[in-house]
C-alpha cells in the first residue's frame, strides 16, 4: 500500500464525517468508526492451492448520543461519494428515529474533544505470482496446510467534538503447519512487512527440523501432574483466553471476573508473573473506538499483584471509577508478558524432565471463580528426559488453575520473548499481537 492510497481513503472518510457532523441537530453527538481492508487470502492444503479470495471491504459505524441515550448502526462504504453520503444520512436518520425508544442510561459516554493522531505504515505490494512460487516451491517436499494473508488494513475515528484519528498498516503473514506421514505436525508463522525469500527459507528450515524430531517413536505419557515448558505461543494461548474478562473491570463489577479472588486478595500469583498493556509494541493503534488515547504502558499484573483492571469510560461512569481509556470490550489490545532469566539455548536443560509444549488448543474456563482452565496440547509436543527430547506425545488435556500455574508452581521464564501476531480474521482482519516469553511450570495437571 502506498501512503497516497491511505491518505486518499482517510480524506474521503473525514469528508463524509464532516458532512454528517454538520447535519446534526443541536444536542446530538456523533462518533464515526471506519474499518477497511484490501486483502488477499490464499488457502493451502497438501502444499497446493485450495482457495483464493480477494476482499475489498470498507465500513463506517455511526454512533449517536442524545442526552443519556446511545445507539450505533453500521453500513458499507463504496467510495461513490454521493451514494455513501446518502447511505450515511439514512443511517443517521434511523438512529435519530430509534433513539427515543430507549431509556436513559447514566453510563452513556459522550464524545470528547482532544488531540488527533495519524499513523501510516506502508509496505510494497506483494504480488501473488511472485510469492506463491517461492512458498510452494519450497513446500513440495512436505505436506503443508495454511493461509497466506496480505494487504493493508485501515482504521479511523472521528467525533463531533473534532477529534480525528487514523491508523493504517500493511503487512502479511503466512501461517502454516507441516505434517509427517504419521500425522505428527509442527506449526509456524512467517510474518512481516516485506517478503524476504532468505528469511522465509530459514523459517521453513526451522519447522522442517522440528518435524524430523516428530518422527521419533511416540512416548506414552500418562495423565497426571508433570513439569512443563510452555513455549511463547502456548503461553500466548492461555493469556489470550485469560483476556476474556480476566483483565476487565466491567467483568469484575458484573460478577464474572475469573481474577475476582486475586482482586479480592484471596489468591496470589507468582512474583515472577507480570503482564502489561503496552502500546510500544507498535502493532495496533493507541486510540479506542470513542477516540480516547490510552497511556503507552499500563501494568495489569505486576510481580504477581493485580495493579489495574482495564477500565473503559463507560464502566468508570457506571461504577464511579477512573477510566484508563480501555476499549469498550475491556480486552487488552497489546499484551506484553515480562520475560525471565533462562537463555533460549538452555530451554531443554532447564526443563530437565517433563513435557515440552509448543502449542495449546481450544482453551476455556472450567471453573471461572477458581481461574481454572482446560485445554489441549497441539502440534509439536515432546517428552523430555534429562534435557533430551525422547519423542512426541499423544495429545493430552489439561485442567489447571492459574493460581497454581502462574502462581505457586511457576518456576522460571525464558529471557527471550516472541511476538505472536494476531491472525484472527472473523468478519475482518484483526490487528495487533502480543509479546510473550516461554514458561517453566511444575505439577501442571493433565486429566485425559
Amino acid at each position, binding site marked *: 500500500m502506498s501512503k497516497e492510497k491511505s491518505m486518499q481513503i482517510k480524506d474521503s472518510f473525514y469528508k463524509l464525517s464532516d458532512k454528517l457532523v454538520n447535519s446534526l441537530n443541536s444536542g446530538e453527538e456523533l462518533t464515526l468508526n471506519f474499518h477497511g481492508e484490501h*486483502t488477499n487470502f*490464499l488457502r493451502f492444503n*497438501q502444499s*497446493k*492451492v485450495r*482457495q*483464493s*479470495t*480477494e*476482499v*475489498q*471491504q470498507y*465500513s463506517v*459505524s455511526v454512533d449517536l448520543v442524545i442526552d443519556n441515550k446511545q*445507539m*450505533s*448502526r*453500521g*453500513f458499507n*462504504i*463504496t*467510495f*461513490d461519494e454521493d451514494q455513501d453520503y446518502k447511505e450515511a444520512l439514512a*443511517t443517521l436518520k*434511523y438512529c435519530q428515529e430509534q433513539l427515543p*425508544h*430507549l*431509556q436513559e442510561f447514566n453510563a452513556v459516554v459522550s464524545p470528547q474533544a482532544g488531540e488527533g493522531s495519524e499513523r501510516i505504515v506502508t509496505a510494497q505490494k506483494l504480488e*501473488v505470482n511472485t510469492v*506463491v512460487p517461492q512458498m*510452494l516451491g519450497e513446500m513440495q517436499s512436505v505436506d503443508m*496446510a495454511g*493461509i497466506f494473508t496480505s494487504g493493508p488494513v485501515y482504521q479511523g475515528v472521528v467525533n463531533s467534538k473534532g477529534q480525528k484519528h487514523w491508523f493504517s498498516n500493511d503487512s502479511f503473514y503466512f*501461517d*502454516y*503447519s507441516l505434517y509427517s506421514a504419521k*500425522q505428527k*505436525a509442527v*506449526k509456524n508463522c512467517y510474518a512481516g512487512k516485506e517478503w524476504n525469500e532468505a528469511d522465509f527459507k530459514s523459517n521453513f528450515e526451522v519447522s522442517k527440523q522440528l518435524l524430523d524430531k516428530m518422527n521419533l517413536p511416540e512416548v506414552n505419557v500418562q495423565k497426571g501432574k508433570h513439569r512443563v515448558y510452555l513455549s511463547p505461543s502456548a503461553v500466548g494461548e492461555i493469556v489470550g483466553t485469560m483476556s476474556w474478562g480476566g483483565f476487565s473491570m466491567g467483568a469484575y463489577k*458484573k*460478577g*464474572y471476573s475469573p481474577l475476582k479472588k486475586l482482586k479480592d486478595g484471596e489468591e496470589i500469583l507468582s512474583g515472577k508473573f507480570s503482564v502489561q498493556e503496552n502500546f510500544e509494541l507498535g502493532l495496533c493503534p493507541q486510540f479506542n473506538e470513542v477516540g480516547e488515547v490510552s497511556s503507552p504502558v499500563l501494568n495489569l499484573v505486576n510481580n504477581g499483584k493485580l495493579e489495574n483492571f482495564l477500565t473503559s469510560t463507560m464502566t468508570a461512569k457506571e461504577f464511579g471509577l477512573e477510566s484508563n481509556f480501555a476499549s469498550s470490550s475491556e480486552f487488552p489490545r497489546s499484551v506484553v508478558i515480562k520475560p525471565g532469566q533462562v537463555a533460549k539455548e538452555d530451554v531443554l536443560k532447564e526443563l530437565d524432565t517433563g513435557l515440552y509444549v509448543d502449542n495449546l*488448543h481450544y482453551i*476455556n*474456563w*472450567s*471453573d*471461572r*471463580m477458581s481461574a*481454572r482452565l482446560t485445554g*489441549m496440547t*497441539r502440534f509439536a509436543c515432546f517428552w523430555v528426559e534429562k534435557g533430551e527430547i525422547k519423542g512426541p506425545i499423544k*495429545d493430552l*488435556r489439561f*485442567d489447571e*488453575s492459574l493460581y497454581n500455574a502462574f502462581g505457586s508452581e511457576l518456576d522460571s521464564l525464558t529471557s527471550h520473548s516472541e511476538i505472536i501476531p494476531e491472525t*484472527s480474521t472473523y*468478519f475482518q482482519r484483526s490487528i495487533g499481537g502480543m509479546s510473550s516469553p516461554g514458561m517453566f511450570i511444575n505439577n501442571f495437571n493433565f*486429566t*485425559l
Partner: protein
Amino acid sequence: MKETFKQLSVNADWWGLREIEDDMTVVSVRNDKVESVKTEVNKGYMAEVLVDGQFAYFATTRADQPSLQYAFDQAAGRANELKKYNLTNFATTERPPAQGSYKPNAQQKFNNDSLKEIVDRFVYSTQNLKATGGIDVISRSVRGLFSNKSMRYYSSNGSDYEQNLTQSQYTLSMTGSYEGDNQTLGNGTKVGQFGLESFDKMTLLQEAEEISRDLELVLKADNCPTDTRDLLIMPDQMYLQVHESIGHPLEIDRILGDERNYAGWSFVNLEDFGNLQYGSPLLNVTFDPTVQSEMASYDFDDTGAPAKKTYLIKEGKLLAGIGSLESQKRSGVKGVACSRMQSWNRPPIDRMANINVECGDSSLDDMIAATEKGVLMRSNKSWSIDDYRNKFQFGCEYGQLIEDGKLTKVVKNPNYRGVCTPFWNNLKMVGDASTMQVSGSFFCGKGEPNQIIRVGHAVPAALFSNIEVFGGGK
C-alpha cells in the same frame, strides 16, 4: 442486479454472483436499563469464477456494472495464475443451477417498529429476575441478536435463486453471589428462525421465574461430586455435545485436511463411512434442512446444491458426512448440501447446517427412574475439545443428582469429560418428542480466512452411562 449480471462478460468456464445483505441488531439490557444497541447493514457482492478446474473469488461492496466486471476479471486472472497449483480439478457439476425463492413462513420479520418492542420485552424480563433466599444479585441481563438476511444468487449456468431468513437468539441470565461465590444461571439460550412471535412476555416471565428459583439453589449447593456415574444431558447442553463431537468430526473438508492449520483434523477417516459404529444403536443423527423454525432450514446451499433430509448416523452406524459437492468429489464419500459462506466476503466451505438427533421413546421421567446413581446437567457454560475431536470436556450452569431413580440435591459447577466414540457408545436411553428442543448457535467458527456460521441442532434429552464427572475448585 440480475440485469447487471447478464451484461457481464467473463473469461471463465463458469461464473456466479451472490448479493448478500444482513441487517442485524444486537440489544443488551442489564438491570432494567438498555446497556447497548448496535445495529448494522452488511451488504456486498461475491464474484466467483471457475477457470480450468480452479475456483477464485473476489468480494466487493460496489454494485455498479464496471466494478462487478472488474471483480470478475480479477478473479479470473487469479484463477489463471493459480491453476497450476490446483489441489482439485473442479467442474461445473460442483455448481448446479438453483432456481426459486426460499421464504419460510410463520415468522415476523424485524422492521422499524421492532426495536421498541424488543427493548420493552427485555426490560420486562430483567425486572422479573429476582433475588430469593438471601442471595445477592449482581447482574440481571438479557442479550439478543436479531437478523434479517437475504441472498440473491445468479450463475452463468442459469441459477436465479433468492433466500430470505429471519434469525434470532437471546439469552436471559442472572449472576448472584452467596458466601463469596458467584454463579450465573441462564435460560440456556433460545436460537432459531423466529421473529418477535417467539418470545412474548409470557415466555420471558416464565424463564425469569425459573432462573430466579434455581439460581438460589445453585449458589447454596455443594460442588458436583468427582466420580464416574450416569449422566442425563438436557437439550440445552446436548446440542453443543452434538455440535462438537458429531458435527465437526463429520465435516469432510476437515477429514481431507483443509482445516488442519486452524480448526483441526478429525479422528474419522474416509474408510469409516459405512463401517464405523459411532454410537450405540439408539443414536440416529440427521442433516435436516426441513425443520420449521430451526436455524439452518433452507432448500439450496450456497453453491446451489438441493438440500434434503439425510441420515448421517443410523442406529449408531456412520453413513454419510457433512461434505459439499466439492468435498464429495474429492473424497468419494456421500455428503449433503452444506457448502455455506458466512457472508458476501468469504468463500463457501463445508459447514454444519441443521444437525439433529432423532428422538427416541423414553420420557424424562423414564430416564430418571432408570438411573440408580447419576447426575442431570443443563445449560452449557464451558466447552473444549481437541483438534481431532476426541477428548472433550464440558461444564454446565446447573446440575442435579439422581439417586435411586429420583432427582435429589442440586450441585454447582458440574463438569464432565470423555472421548468421542466410547462416549456415544455409552448412550443408554434417548428422550422422546416431549424432550426435544430446537437449539443451535449464531457462532460456529471455522475456516481460513475465519468464518462464523449459523447452525441449528434439534435434540432430545439423553442418558449416558459411566461418565467421568467432577466439580469446581482450584
